[in-house]
């Protein structure tokens, strides 16, 4: 955070200030980490002169226009503790500055520099740093990002996690996997992102609409997964990771190798793979039977770089199979009622690694081709193509030997092209681009069950323009985008008539933002985003019984259970989100406060409208409807380095969500939460470095704005249209987590050891954001051990 502010301020600093005395001395230096590795991009700030320098790729920097006196230097770098040193210009020739990595789990920073063009600078962004990712290796992507303030997670048991940003998720959140928008069957709550978190060196979360840059599916925000850049060095490096967890008896292993081709250092490559296997998780009082998981992932990249031309080909394959809690498969409302009354799962068996039905099997293949070239004074041209094939199979508990037949089998083939021209002329930088996508989604025949959503072809074309203007302490930005989408769906009515309804959606987005730098410590930014999103096929045409929720769901294009053809009833979702962030940083304290208000017209969501008698008994029927929604809230975080050894962190978030049209609450909105963390660091203990111990206490409050409770047995008599839930929101809970770690030098290389205990007290609790909370408690105590061995010689 501090680093970027400083870089910017140094650009804005007044050139008239430095010219008074004979102050033309220079001091050069080097910024390195504890192992002597250079740290490029660190800021060296001369407080008295209000100017500074940024270290180069080899860690070197040069301070100019210094007088013959003493200065206080502030050295800052993302992921490292700030360093304050005194520089005596008279006696100093070359400075060597060593920075200590901060072991804080999270580091919220404003990213500029490399990332400057990726998203709005006036937007609220949180970053999961490499250190934080390393400290959470073995967790899924959703679980990892949920540690950032304002980000939470929607769960289906202990293995399926979906990121939720300020209350929005699924088709409203875009996930950028190494520069490519993740196209999977992301519309369902039980559809987790098909991404191997081991590819990430950094994860950014943009907490406002980024539809101008990325299109309609970024209406609620973006999760950006950045892989480390390819290295062109001749030597081979890499890393090995091993994670072991007691709960679920899970093991995770990943390996990565990278290097260049000796000759001219223009070519570089990377190969990476990870494997994961876990069995049944357990809650404090019982096994969560059939919650095992298996994963086998692979990725490879090859890059070429010459002067200002860059090209890269990247492929990845993500393959997983995971079990869904056996007891969560409900035949009808009576089953659900029994589960709620029992208070614990009806099926509890001994631990096993075996994965039985209900289960999901997912394969996701990705091909990315990207290239960029500087075109004279025009700027930089970026081209990205992404092709994805996603196969999702869901297996249910069925009769007559059909258990091996998927109950749902979807295949999505997606192609995306992005072409953008980036220009920069002094104070003005900007981006003009087009993107086009084609998606084809099919139900693979042979399930013996009517498909939940129809087959479809979707073509989207968009054009956007974003400009940023830097003026002294101000930063302004504005952007606009237009899209057209053609959607064709294919489905049967009455088993015999094939119909192909077509839709044409035209929609626009805009953004307007500003940031003001009071000084190098205080920054205020504000952004207004206008975003439009046409409804997704699942929202238009879902139709069928959902076994996980014991409910029948019907899309916008159904009325009283019958298909309609009138498309005028369907409106684009329109979000107006205003988000303001205040950031303040001092030597040993940094603070961030974000407030937002999001008004969404035609917000699509599920609402009960009737109860239907079927041969399986009564079911509530939920209908996709459009309403005016209002979501407002705030996130805050504070990091305080109390002494050199002790650091304290606190972060929290609160969200207020309201269905304005129906004067009701909205379902599945995260409750308020606060997390306190205290840690103690020893710089060195014997041969060990960066030895630390930490204690964190997450507190999750009850969701007081949960829908009214209608128990399953009361559903047949329920005739109101207020949104309801089958059981009251669970009580709040407090967990205690402990962690410790150290770096161990092994010859020239380094081994990083991390150990943690989550839910130390083995507390039984249920999470409002877990869809399986009707059936079982959340997971209990978990010991985990993580080892990381860095193959790069130091």
């Amino acid at each position, binding site marked *: 955070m501090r680093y970027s502010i400083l870089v910017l301020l140094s650009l804005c600093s007044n050139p008239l200030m430095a010219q008074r005395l004979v102050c033309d001395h220079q001091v050069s230096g080097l910024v390195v980490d504890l192992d002597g590795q250079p740290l490029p991009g660190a800021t060296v700030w001369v407080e008295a002169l209000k100017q500074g320098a940024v270290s180069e790729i080899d860690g070197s920097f040069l301070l100019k226009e210094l007088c013959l006196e003493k200065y206080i230097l502030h050295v800052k770098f993302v992921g490292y503790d700030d360093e304050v040193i005194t520089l005596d210009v008279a006696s100093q020739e070359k400075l060597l500055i060593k920075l200590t990595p901060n072991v804080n789990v999270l580091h919220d920073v404003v990213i500029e520099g490399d990332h400057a063009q990726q998203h709005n600078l006036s937007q609220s962004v949180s970053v999961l740093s490499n250190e934080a990712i390393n400290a959470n290796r073995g967790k899924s992507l959703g679980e990892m990002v949920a540690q950032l303030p304002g980000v939470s997670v929607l769960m289906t048991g202990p293995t399926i996690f979906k990121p939720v940003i300020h209350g929005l998720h699924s088709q409203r959140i875009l996930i950028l996997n190494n520069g490519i928008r993740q196209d999977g069957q992301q519309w369902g709550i039980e559809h987790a992102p098909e991404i191997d978190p081991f590819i990430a060196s950094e994860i950014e979360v943009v907490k406002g609409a980024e539809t101008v840059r990325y299109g309609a599916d970024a209406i609620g925000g973006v999760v950006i997964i950045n892989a480390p850049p390819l290295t062109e060095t001749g030597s081979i490096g890499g890393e090995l990771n091993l994670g072991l967890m007691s709960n679920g008896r899970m093991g995770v292993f990943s390996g990565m190798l990278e290097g260049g081709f000796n000759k001219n250092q223009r070519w570089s490559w990377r190969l990476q793979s990870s494997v994961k296997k876990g069995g049944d998780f357990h809650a404090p009082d019982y096994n969560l039977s059939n919650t095992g998981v298996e994963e086998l992932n692979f990725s490879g990249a090859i890059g070429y770089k010459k002067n200002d031309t860059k090209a890269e080909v990247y492929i990845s394959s993500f393959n997983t199979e995971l079990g869904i809690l056996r007891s969560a498969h409900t035949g009808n409302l009576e089953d659900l009622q029994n589960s709620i009354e029992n208070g614990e799962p009806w099926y509890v068996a001994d631990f096993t690694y075996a994965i039985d039905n209900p289960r999901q099997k997912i394969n996701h293949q990705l091909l990315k081709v990207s290239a960029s070239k500087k075109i004279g004074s025009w700027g930089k041209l970026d*081209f990205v193509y992404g092709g994805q094939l996603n196969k999702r199979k869901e297996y249910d508990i069925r009769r007559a030997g059909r258990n091996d037949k998927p109950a749902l089998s979807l295949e999505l083939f997606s*192609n995306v*092209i992005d072409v953008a021209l980036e220009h920069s002329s002094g104070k003005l930088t900007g981006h003009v681009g087009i993107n086009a996508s084609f998606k084809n989604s099919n139900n693979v025949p042979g399930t013996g069950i*009517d498909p939940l959503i129809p087959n479809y072809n979707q073509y989207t074309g968009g054009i956007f323009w974003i400009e940023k203007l830097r003026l002294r302490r101000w930063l302004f930005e504005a952007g606009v985008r237009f899209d057209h989408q053609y959607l064709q769906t294919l489905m049967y009515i009455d088993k015999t008539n094939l119909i192909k309804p077509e839709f044409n959606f035209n929609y626009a987005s805009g953004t307007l933002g500003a940031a003001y730098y009071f000084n190098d410590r205080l920054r205020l930014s504000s952004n207004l985003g206008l975003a439009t999103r046409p409804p997704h096929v699942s929202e238009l045409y879902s139709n069928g019984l959902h076994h996980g929720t014991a409910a029948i769901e019907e899309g916008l294009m159904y009325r009283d259970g019958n298909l309609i053809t009138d498309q005028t009833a369907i409106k684009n979702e329109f979000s107006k989100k205003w988000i303001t962030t205040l950031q303040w940083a001092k030597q040993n304290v940094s603070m961030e406060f974000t407030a937002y208000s999001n008004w969404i017209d035609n917000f699509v969501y599920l609402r009960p409208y009737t109860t239907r008698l079927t041969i399986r008994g009564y079911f509530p029927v939920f209908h996709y409807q459009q309403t005016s929604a209002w979501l407002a809230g705030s996130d805050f975080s504070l990091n305080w380095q109390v002494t050199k050894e002790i650091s304290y962190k606190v972060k929290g978030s609160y969200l207020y969500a309201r269905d304005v049209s129906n004067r009701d609450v909205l379902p599945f909105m995260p409750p308020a939460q606060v997390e306190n963390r205290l840690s103690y660091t020893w710089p060195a203990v014997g041969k060990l470095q960066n030895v630390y111990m930490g204690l964190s206490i997450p507190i999750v409050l009850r969701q007081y704005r949960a829908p009214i409770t209608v128990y399953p047995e009361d559903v047949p008599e329920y005739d109101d249209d207020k949104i309801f839930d089958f059981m009251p929101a669970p009580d709040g809970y407090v967990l205690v987590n402990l962690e410790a770690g150290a770096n161990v030098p092994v010859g020239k290389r380094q081994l990083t050891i991390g150990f943690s205990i989550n839910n130390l007290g083995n507390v039984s609790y249920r999470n409002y954001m877990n869809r399986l909370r009707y059936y079982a408690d959340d997971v209990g105590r978990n010991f985990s051990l993580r080892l990381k061995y860095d193959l790069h010689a130091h």
Partner: protein
Amino acid sequence: MNQHQLITTARSLVFTTTALVSVFQFSSCSEDPEPTNEEELITTVIIDLTPASGGDDIQLKFYDADGSGAGAPIITPDVAQLVSGKVYEAQITLLNEEAGEDITEEIDEERNDHLFCFTPTNTNVTIGYSDEDDNGRPIGLSTYWTVGDAGEAGNVKITLRHQPGTKDGSCPGSGDTDVEVTFPVQVVD
């Protein structure tokens, strides 16, 4: 950059885009889907009641053509009239009329995993099992209904429990519900 370069770049851009768009077009020639044959649908539950000591047969029928669709099920008769003092032999038949299949056979084949449960409410009928699976546990495809004193109209609820690997013969026991139908029943003299 000079104009020539710009034109070249623009031209290659247009070319690439055109090429890729045609790839899109090609790949999108997806065939029309086939209609799904709903294999596990149960459209009909029939209970044939035959008095052991002579008298009129009674058939209870629950018919729902469209599974979870909006079409309302048809339940006949409005109120089944069982004669006081009689014992009826009851036989359950499950059909998928859409596919013309008899699901009863499927249940019988998987009798070790299935159990019918019977819950009479407000009516003087007692229901006992007259069949058992390979483990000596009841199935419920065949039952006998002992009818007591006459009274007001009540209900008999019949559920089919699917309990793969966990069936212990108790109701409702473990597992999921595949069928839940309720028939209005009255005992008359």
